[in-house]
Each structure stands twice: as C-alpha cells, then as structure tokens.
C-alpha cells in the first residue's frame, strides 16, 4: 500500500473548516493596523502618513483617513508608532462597495491643524 495513504490516515483531515468554523492559521497572516486615536498626535499622524508606502493613510485635520483597500499590511506604521498602532487581526475584508473600505478615524490626541 502506498505510504501516502497510511500517512493520510494517520494525520486525518487537514482541510480547513472555514467558513463554518474559524481557521487557526488565520492569526498567522499579516493584517491591517488598528489605531489608538488617543495616542496619535499630529506629529505621529503625519509621520505615519509620510511613511506609508501605499498611500493608505491621509490626514484631514483631526481625522485620520485609513484606506484598508490600499493597505498592504506592511507594518511600517506599527514600527513607526508602536504605542499608537497594533495589528487588527482582521482578514475578512472583502467589500461590495469600495467606499466601505475607507475609514475615517477621529483623533482624540493633541492635534494641531
């Protein structure tokens, strides 16, 4: 009997149960950032906007505009401001409207125009 058959029987089913059940490997992939508005001052915000390589971030006064569609989850904003940004852990990001992926985040930190 071929060895792969025995190996398969021993390991059982490897196929994910997604979407019926969450997949354990989902936490291993890079995900877009999640922001702490109270920790983002204008300096930190502008630094993140400047460092974003895919123009996913923009600042409009005291609002940070985050385009999740443009985000490549590279993690540079997280590296730039570890206190203000974490990984969101969200990977189910499909949208039927492009505008549904553009988020306006009200900054609560000290912001100068």
């Amino acid at each position, binding site marked *: 009997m071929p060895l792969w058959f025995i190996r398969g029987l021993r390991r059982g089913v*490897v*196929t*994910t149960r*997604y*979407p*019926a059940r969450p*997949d354990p*490997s*989902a936490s291993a*992939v890079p995900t*877009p*950032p*999640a*922001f*702490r*508005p109270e920790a983002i001052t204008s300096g930190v915000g502008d630094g993140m906007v400047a460092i974003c390589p*895919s*123009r*996913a971030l923009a600042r409009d006064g005291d609002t940070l505009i*985050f*385009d*999740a*569609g*443009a*985000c*490549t*989850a*590279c993690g540079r904003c997280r590296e730039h401001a570890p206190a203000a940004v*974490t990984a*969101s852990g*969200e*990977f*189910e*990001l*499909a*949208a*039927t*409207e*492009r505008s*549904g*992926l553009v*988020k306006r*985040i009200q900054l609560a930190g000290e912001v100068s125009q």
Partner: protein
Amino acid sequence: MSTSTTGAGPVAANPEQAAAAELRSAVARQFGRSLHIRTLDTGSCAACEQEIRMLAAPHYDLHRLGFFFTPAPRHADLLLVTGPMLRAFAAAARKTYDAMPGPKLVVATGACALGGVYQPDAFSYGSVEPVLPVDVWIPGCPPSPLALLQGLLVAVGRLAEKAPALSFVVGGSS
C-alpha cells in the same frame, strides 16, 4: 454547508438599493452552488496568483465549496482580477469580460487592483475600476487564501461582508 447568512443586508428604502439587493439574491440563487472562476493577471507581481493557486491545495480546497477554476472566459461566471491594470492590457481585459456569459461577477483582488500601490500613469490605470465594473473588492497584499475564500463567498452571497462595519480603532466597534 453554511448558507444561512447572505450579503443582501436589510431591505433598503430607496429603489436603487432595493434593485441591488434583488440582483444580489438572484446572483446567490444562480451562483450559490457552483461557480467557475477565471483569473486575470493585469500586471501583478504574481503574489496574488500564488495565493489563488493555494486555494486549490488540500488545506483550503475551494472545490468543496463548489468553486472551480476554468481556463476559458466563455466558461467563467466570475473574473478574479489581480494587478494594477496595465494600459497595454486593458483591451484584452475588456475582451475577456465581454467573452464571459452573463450574469457575471468581477472581483478585484489585492492592493494593486484596488488602487493602493500604483498611481495612474502612462503605463497603468492604477486600479481595475476604470476598465471593468467591479462587484467585490478583496484587500490584501497579497490577500491570504482565507481572505480570498471569504471574498468569493461574499461575491456569491453566501457570507455577509464584514469590512464596512470595522472601524480599525483599538477597542472600537469592530
């Protein structure tokens, strides 16, 4: 198979949204069980293709959900478009779309196709939208196979979309 949730959402007041909801439920009826996918590379770096290829691997096994890849646009129900849509490729992309029998869906895949990485210039449109009518957007660079699966299930109305409700704020309503 979990088919309890749909992407239709609450019934909208204005007739345009009601028509869209009706169309979506019709698409779900027709495509809910079997769907043939044609992938279209409009100038991507092939990372998206790598992830799309992984969908057919045993761990993800998209055939269990009734999705199949087809090499011919004439046999395809869904066009999975990657890349920033090079201007040199636009005519071929339009021909591919025109060759598909209706009803048909277009899914823009990856940050390039969504307009994140390249700006419109002499060589590319910068996103898929100026050339093809996009139905579903899947972000990611590249989108993981699970993200692609979710996007495909959203496209056929077997899973509700989550992205519009996310706030990307720590401790926010997400």
